[in-house]
């Protein structure tokens, strides 16, 4: 297992290096001269050269890349080309919003998805399975951001149950934070829950008809114990895979959800940066999200081998 994880960690590192090269070259491919933008249109050639030297733009690409990676590793994400604020500060204020939202949404997705999936599998052929399956097909066909807008319309504007926008940190006021985040988290979470539910149901159906489950039943174990300790545990590998594969969707979804509910998160920071052409911020966000994505994928792989010892052999 140690060797397997080491191998995977090595792969992840290669991925990160590749991603940083792509981002680095992508920023260089952008139209416009950053030195000119910073120095202003009326700058003399000398001033321009000074800015260029200051930014390290007068050096060769590999040297520039080395400098860039060095800065990244020391936590220096550069400064916003628009406001001059350190990007690290901007990320530090917006990241928690996105993190809380995603975490809450993930809890909703797993709870709803696994719960409904198990119910659909156990109640096979009855109305419960039909209800769960129909809901998931509808959820998959309908854009989740539209559900978000409808939720704002019905639950916030008409019924007044939840606030239509705004954010409160859970560290400051947990109850108000819950009130503010519940609608966004459910909108983001149910979209993923639909996928999780489908896979959980399929996997549970397979496990429930396996020999070892029949043996456990024949042994006289209570249905609850058979379901929880035997069937569900075996289906968990599938659930972890699906949730891992939905990670990209979670990140993309968080950006949209933040936009609908006016949450001051990383998504809003990114979109504002795109509209104002704040390349330093875009660059930082792309690298951060990629790093996060790679690390979580590694964690999912590690989780596999904990949940299912057979995975180690395959590696």
């Amino acid at each position, binding site marked *: 297992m140690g060797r397997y994880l080491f191998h995977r960690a090595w*792969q992840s590192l290669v*991925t990160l290096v590749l991603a940083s090269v792509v981002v680095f070259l*992508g920023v260089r*491919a*952008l*139209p416009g001269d950053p030195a000119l933008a910073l120095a202003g249109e009326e700058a003399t050639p000398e001033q321009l050269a000074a800015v260029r030297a200051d930014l390290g733009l007068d050096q060769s690409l590999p040297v520039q890349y080395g400098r860039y990676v060095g800065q990244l590793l020391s936590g220096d994400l550069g400064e916003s080309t628009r406001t001059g604020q350190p990007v690290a500060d901007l990320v530090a204020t917006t990241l928690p919003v996105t993190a809380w939202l995603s975490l809450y949404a993930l809890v909703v997705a797993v709870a709803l998805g696994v719960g409904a999936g198990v119910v659909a599998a156990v109640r096979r052929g009855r109305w419960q399975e039909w209800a769960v399956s129909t809901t998931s*097909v509808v959820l*998959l*066909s*309908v*854009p989740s*951001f*539209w559900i978000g*807008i*409808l939720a*704002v*319309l019905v639950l916030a*504007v008409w019924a007044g149950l939840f606030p239509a926008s705004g954010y409160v940190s859970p560290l400051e006021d947990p109850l108000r934070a819950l009130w503010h985040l519940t609608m966004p988290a459910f909108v983001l979470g149910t979209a993923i829950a639909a996928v999780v539910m489908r896979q959980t149901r399929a996997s549970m159906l397979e496990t429930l008809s396996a020999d070892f489950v029949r043996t456990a039943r024949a042994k006289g174990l209570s249905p609850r114990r058979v379901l929880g300790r035997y069937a569900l545990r075996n289906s968990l590998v599938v659930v972890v895979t699906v949730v*891992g*594969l*939905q*990670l*990209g*969707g979670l*990140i*993309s979804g968080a*950006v*949209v959800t933040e*936009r*609908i509910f006016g949450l001051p998160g990383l998504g809003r920071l*990114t*979109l504002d940066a*795109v*509209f104002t*052409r704040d*390349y330093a911020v*875009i660059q930082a*966000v*792309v690298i951060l*999200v*990629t790093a996060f*994505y790679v690390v979580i*994928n590694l964690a999912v792989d590690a989780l596999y081998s904990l949940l299912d010892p057979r995975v180690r052999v395959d590696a």
Partner: protein
Amino acid sequence: MAVEQPAPPAAGVGSPGAPTPAADDGLGGGRGRVLRKVLGDAKGVVGIALLAVVVLGALLAPVLAPYGPTEVNFETPFQRPLTVGYLLGTDDLGRDVLSRILFGLRASLQVGLLAVGLAVVVGVPLGLVAGWWKGVDAVVSRVTDLLLAFPFLIIAVGLAAIGGASLGNAAIALGVAAIPTMVRVVRAETLRVRSRPFVDAARTMDASGPRILATHVLPNAGSAIIVQATIIMPTAVIGEALLSFLGLGIQPPTPSLGIMLSDAQQYLLRAPSAAVLPGLAIAVICLGFNLLGDALRDALDPLTVPARRRRRGKAAAR
């Protein structure tokens, strides 16, 4: 515009499998059989009907739309649906919602087809090559594994930052995001077909790898590619709406269902129908493709896999 393309898959679906093994199987023409199965399936019929409405609406938008999609009328903002002259009402600028939805359908289908096209053009050759040559497979599979769950929004953000937000860049981002699954599907099909006797026969006749891939493997992977395309299409349609909603896709005043939703959110209280209708249109497109895709999968599955297995079993018994 190539908007009418969604229909052909249903009709042409049997042909890819026909040239090599399916032609001599005595099952009586794959093409008509699949079509009949899809038409005999409630899901298929509803899916085709929904798509027919959508495609006709998009194609005939210039004829059907009572007003220009960007025609502003400050005298009649926020008309309710079913008002005389405005079947689905008007938005904040007095633009006719029905006309905008019809033209929005065009944009949705356009981006969807471009994305599917990109996924096919790049994904299919990569999948074939990866399934055939082991050395290439190692590299291709590693990259697709990595891209498989990568947030497509990050790709879209990068493209919008470099090339500006546009219909084309949205389609590229969505197409790139769809490539990994297409590669996987085609690779799996290639692996399945490469061990079949008719491929061995081609090999003994000294056919080159590319030739076998083009004449034997690709036709057999056809149905899987088409089914995958019906999966990519609705995803891309939702993706376009989402990108345009965020301002990363089609730019106003060009009508897009996503932009309409984004606008409608500004005046939710005054005209809730403006937030409901474009979303419904997206749902209809996606439901149509999902249903048709399901029916196609059902129609193709029992025809291809088990029927052949049965025959192989019989041959072995003999």
